[in-house]
């Protein structure tokens, strides 16, 4: 009797992703047929047309039609996108092919901060007070009537690129000009009409957390709740340390998850990974961002899940394995993170310039509890600090018995690194 065909996953991988290895290796471990689609062609696409595909990520409907044509000869059982743009394309493909996924309108709402804020506010989810302004507006006049402190944001850029706090009118004018410069860079301006607008919102004080989840039929299954122990008070919002489990009290954690769930419902997200960022203060949780994609960068390596019943002995499943299983309708293991505390540091950009050398990697790796130090910037790469930049030079991972011990290990490892910039 012939074996039934393996299910085919269409994996939407932008070429600037950090996530290729994690997803490709997860698909191999799960023994699924994999087709990787990117916005630019692979040099092997003509030789391997069933495994590699080019889709127009800038036009989700066109990409969905391209995927539909592909699926006529290569049936697709599931689709997943790994970043903000790919998540919208994945939704369009899922709708076109009748696959598990989010609606395009929900994915778009998660993609665009103004649409997202509007929907969340309309449904009573606590969000900062916000306004959208055009780049051609009278900035001094805006500055004079804005409430402070405030935060200026682009509508769609990722990784807090272009996000700037202003504490007074002069700071507002300077921040607006700086963000406008970013939005008018040719490669950004070409991304669409959204680049002609700026979101201005109240600065919400308080510590920030990140909520990682898998949405199944509209309900969040929490995969991880991360504390961000370094204050994110601006003026720029480059991230550093993520630690899990969270040290917030159980009631506070429930409030945070409840807020995330309310946001998921408000946007209409129905299936797939989500990554939310929230602030928590005396009035409770505030939804700052909700993305219909998994955690970015290399950070997913910090999450490991017990394989559970039907799993592979004492093996631990990766976040990518869970996402692929869910997309393909394969049985899911228990969605429980391993018991140990874990953390990741997105290594701060040490300054502007060309990276000439990185010293102390072995010493950093030798710090107890540190599992790995990954330098993702290559020698000769221009390092660009926030708010103009969005690329971390690397990541440090640690695991231990307590979040405190993990945090200390991450900081100790970071102190051992020296970046030489020319």
């Amino acid at each position, binding site marked *: 009797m012939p074996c039934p065909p393996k299910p085919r996953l269409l994996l939407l991988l932008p070429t600037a992703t950090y996530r*290729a290895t994690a997803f*490709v*290796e997860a698909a191999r471990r799960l023994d699924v047929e994999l087709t990787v689609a990117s916005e630019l062609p692979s040099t*092997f696409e003509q*030789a*391997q047309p069933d495994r590699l595909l080019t889709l127009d990520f800038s036009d989700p409907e066109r990409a969905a039609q391209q995927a539909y044509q592909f699926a006529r000869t290569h049936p697709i059982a599931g689709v997943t996108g790994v*970043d903000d743009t790919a998540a919208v394309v994945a939704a369009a493909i899922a709708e076109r092919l009748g696959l598990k996924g989010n609606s395009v309108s929900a994915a778009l709402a998660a993609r665009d901060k103004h649409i997202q804020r509007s929907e969340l506010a309309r449904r009573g989810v606590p969000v900062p007070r916000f306004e959208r302004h055009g780049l051609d507006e009278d900035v001094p006049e805006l500055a004079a009537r804005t409430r402070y402190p405030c935060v200026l944001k682009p509508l769609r850029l990722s990784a807090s690129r272009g996000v700037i706090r202003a504490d007074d009118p002069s700071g507002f004018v300077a921040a607006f000009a700086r963000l406008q410069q970013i939005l008018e860079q040719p490669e950004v301006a070409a991304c669409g009409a959204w680049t002609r607008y700026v979101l201005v919102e109240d600065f919400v004080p308080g510590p920030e957390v990140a909520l990682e989840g898998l949405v199944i039929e509209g309900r969040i299954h929490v995969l991880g709740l991360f504390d961000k122990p370094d204050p994110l008070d601006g003026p720029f919002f480059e991230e550093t340390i993520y630690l899990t489990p969270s040290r917030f009290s159980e009631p506070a954690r429930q409030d945070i998850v409840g807020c995330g769930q309310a946001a998921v419902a408000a946007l209409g997200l129905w299936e797939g990974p989500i990554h939310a960022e929230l602030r928590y203060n005396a009035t409770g949780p505030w939804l700052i961002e909700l993305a219909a994609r998994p955690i970015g960068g290399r950070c997913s390596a910090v999450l490991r899940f017990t394989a559970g019943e039907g799993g592979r002995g004492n093996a631990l499943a990766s976040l990518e394995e869970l996402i692929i299983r869910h997309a393909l309708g394969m049985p899911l293991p228990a969605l429980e993170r391993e018991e140990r505390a874990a953390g990741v540091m997105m290594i701060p950009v040490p300054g502007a310039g060309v990276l000439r050398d990185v010293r102390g990697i072995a010493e950093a790796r030798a710090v107890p509890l540190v599992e790995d130090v990954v330098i993702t910037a290559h020698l*000769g790469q221009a390092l660009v600090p926030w708010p103009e930049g969005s690329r971390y030079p690397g990541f440090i991972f640690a*695991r231990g018995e307590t979040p405190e011990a993990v945090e200390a290990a991450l900081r100790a490892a970071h102190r051992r690194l020296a970046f030489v910039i020319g």
Partner: protein
Amino acid sequence: MDVAEIRITAEPIDNARCKFLVSLPVHSGGVRRFSSSEAAQGSPLAEALFAIPGAEVTEVIVSGNLVTVVKRSAAPWQAIGKSVGAAIRSVLASGHAAVAPKPAAAAAPSGVDDDALYDRVAELFDAQVNPMVARHGGRVELIDVQDAVVMLRMAGGCQGCGMADVTLRQGIEAMLQEAVPEVKGIVDITDHTAGTNPYFAAAKK
């Protein structure tokens, strides 16, 4: 030799595989791959690595100053890596050859002739693989074939490229499966962290 002079850098690929870059040559006679503790007999470094308690090592590949270890255990590399480092230092300090030379007539257990496979894979790389990756300034070097497993190194635009694993698994491995179906696997021994001109560089999303 003073073991303190030996510097080792671990480069985990995932929780199963890790590359160890050693400051001194470990084995200068090409690539040796060991897929079992029995195959490791006579090669002190491979023997020591297969014997690490709790690691459940399943594969060791030694080439120049690079040692790649594959394990089955869920234990993190942070714990296992120290034992690997100690084994490498101990063997190098002994002054004996870390691994035995490759047998003259190596053949896979299936009876496949590695030398014949090497020639076919090399032809595929020359005729098809390298012209394709050259479009992105890349190059793929065939290092060896052992027990029907192809070992390769990526360079140029492929080295450190964010999409290198896609090229490897969706492109090169797929072509090998079609053109040389006797090939059982493919191992990338590239030090991707040393790439200085990757075709695609990553950004957090």
